[in-house]
């Protein structure tokens, strides 16, 4: 039974998913532009719509720390953050993943200070590439709702047990009302099994979590973690397959738009993908064989799918929504170029940076990037060009 299509703000769609998932604990600190998510959850706990413990902590560092504790005792745990909040909890993020605690966190991607900006970009994401969480990008309210539900299953599966970040663009998605189809409680109950951590803290079966390791053990512990994170790919794919059967909406690690015969591809993640699709349509109208590739799954890095989606194109133009200061390529561009460098006769990978601190990027600018990108690819010169910067 499909429920009626409704309009819902991106943030609230995520809160609704968390409610349907019947989370047990939300430990959170508000920060623009994620606040609507946790505010709504607090409201739902207060009215009794959601039977959960809402822990209003004093900072994001405490939020993630409290989430560690609740996840460790077997409570389904959810939180949300953005920008500076993500940075404040940074050290605890590594701990959540290395302790294999399946926390789900929505991140309303926000620019990192300074200057202080509450608006969206991906600098908060790029600062946490290495922390060991499963990371998924969504582009619209439907995807935000769907993938928050999927995140619980990906996180809590006994062969996974890794925390999951669901990235949504701050303001561009968090604060925008979009049409979407929700699911009902029965559908979600069928999709999400109960969370059972194999070693949940329990006085009857005591364990120590958060141990210390001498040099003789640390390397092996990290290898075990990396191997396990890569192995979650199977669970991620299975989850999306099951979700597709339930909802009719299928997701995959790399999603493409008109890319099959494309000579030049735009590549990005997040809501600007939808603007880029318009650019691709216009370019196609003008006779240019353009396409779009975007990351749905960011970590573990979907190497095979990326290669599959891009190998037959001549140029890949990566659009980065953050700067890695002092480097000659944006962060996503760097990763994509490295991934595709193993291909013989693979595409040239070039990049642009834009959409920083909430700056808009237009269809015309994406078309311009395609044009300039192909030219840059011929010169082989790398330098960061920031789209729309006032010289």
């Amino acid at each position, binding site marked *: 039974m499909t429920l009626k299509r409704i309009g819902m703000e991106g943030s609230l769609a995520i809160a609704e998913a968390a409610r349907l998932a019947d989370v047990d604990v939300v430990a959170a600190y508000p920060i623009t532009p994620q606040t609507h998510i946790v505010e709504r959850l607090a409201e739902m706990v207060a009215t009794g719509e959601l039977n959960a413990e809402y822990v209003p902590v004093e900072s994001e560092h405490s939020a993630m720390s409290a989430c560690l504790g609740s996840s460790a005792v077997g409570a389904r745990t959810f939180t949300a953050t953005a920008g500076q909040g993500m940075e404040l909890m940074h050290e605890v993020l590594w701990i959540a993943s290395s302790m*294999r605690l399946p926390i789900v966190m929505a991140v309303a991607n926000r620019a990192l200070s300074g200057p202080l900006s509450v608006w969206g970009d991906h600098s908060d994401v790029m600062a946490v590439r290495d922390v060991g969480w499963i990371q998924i990008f969504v582009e619209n309210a439907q995807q935000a709702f769907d993938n928050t539900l999927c995140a619980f299953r990906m996180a809590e599966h006994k062969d996974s*047990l890794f925390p999951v970040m669901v990235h949504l663009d701050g303001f561009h998605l968090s604060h925008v009302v979009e049409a979407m189809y929700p699911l009902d409680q029965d559908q979600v109950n069928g999709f999400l099994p109960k969370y059972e951590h194999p*070693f949940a803290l329990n006085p009857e079966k005591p364990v120590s*979590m958060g141990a210390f390791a001498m040099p*003789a053990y640390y390397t092996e512990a990290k290898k*075990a973690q990396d191997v396990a994170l890569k192995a979650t790919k199977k669970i991620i794919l299975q989850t999306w397959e099951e979700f597709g059967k339930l909802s009719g909406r299928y997701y995959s690690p790399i999603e493409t738009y008109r890319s099959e015969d494309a000579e030049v591809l735009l590549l990005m993640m997040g809501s600007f993908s939808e603007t880029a699709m318009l650019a691709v349509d216009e370019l196609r109208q003008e006779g240019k064989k353009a396409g779009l590739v975007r990351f749905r799954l960011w970590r573990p890095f979907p190497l095979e799918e990326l290669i599959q989606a891009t190998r037959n194109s001549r140029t890949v133009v990566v659009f980065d929504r953050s700067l890695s200061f002092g480097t000659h390529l944006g962060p996503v561009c760097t990763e994509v170029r490295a991934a595709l460098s193993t291909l013989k006769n693979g595409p040239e990978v070039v990049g642009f940076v834009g959409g920083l601190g909430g700056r808009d990027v237009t269809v015309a600018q994406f078309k311009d990037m395609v044009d300039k990108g192909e030219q840059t690819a011929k010169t082989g010169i790398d330098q960061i060009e920031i789209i729309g910067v006032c010289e």
Partner: protein
Amino acid sequence: MTLSWRDFEIGCIVSQPGNAAEYKTGDWKADRPIVNLDRCIKCGICYMYCPEGCIQENSKGYFMANLYYCKGCGICATECPTKAISMVEEVEA
């Protein structure tokens, strides 16, 4: 002692309670405690204060540090009300 990465418990959980006892820290110490049995009044204060929990009561009721664990911090010597414990340098015999 080495361990294959495959043999690590998930999340580096320690599921065997109390296995800190397998790790002998006695070779960490530079000084070791020596008890003057004439001064010792068997009050057990050293046992309570030892941060390692390595002081044990023997069959005669005296409290002795287990030197396989004792790190030589000297807290027992500082807390002993009769100054029965002295810290002496651990040297090669």
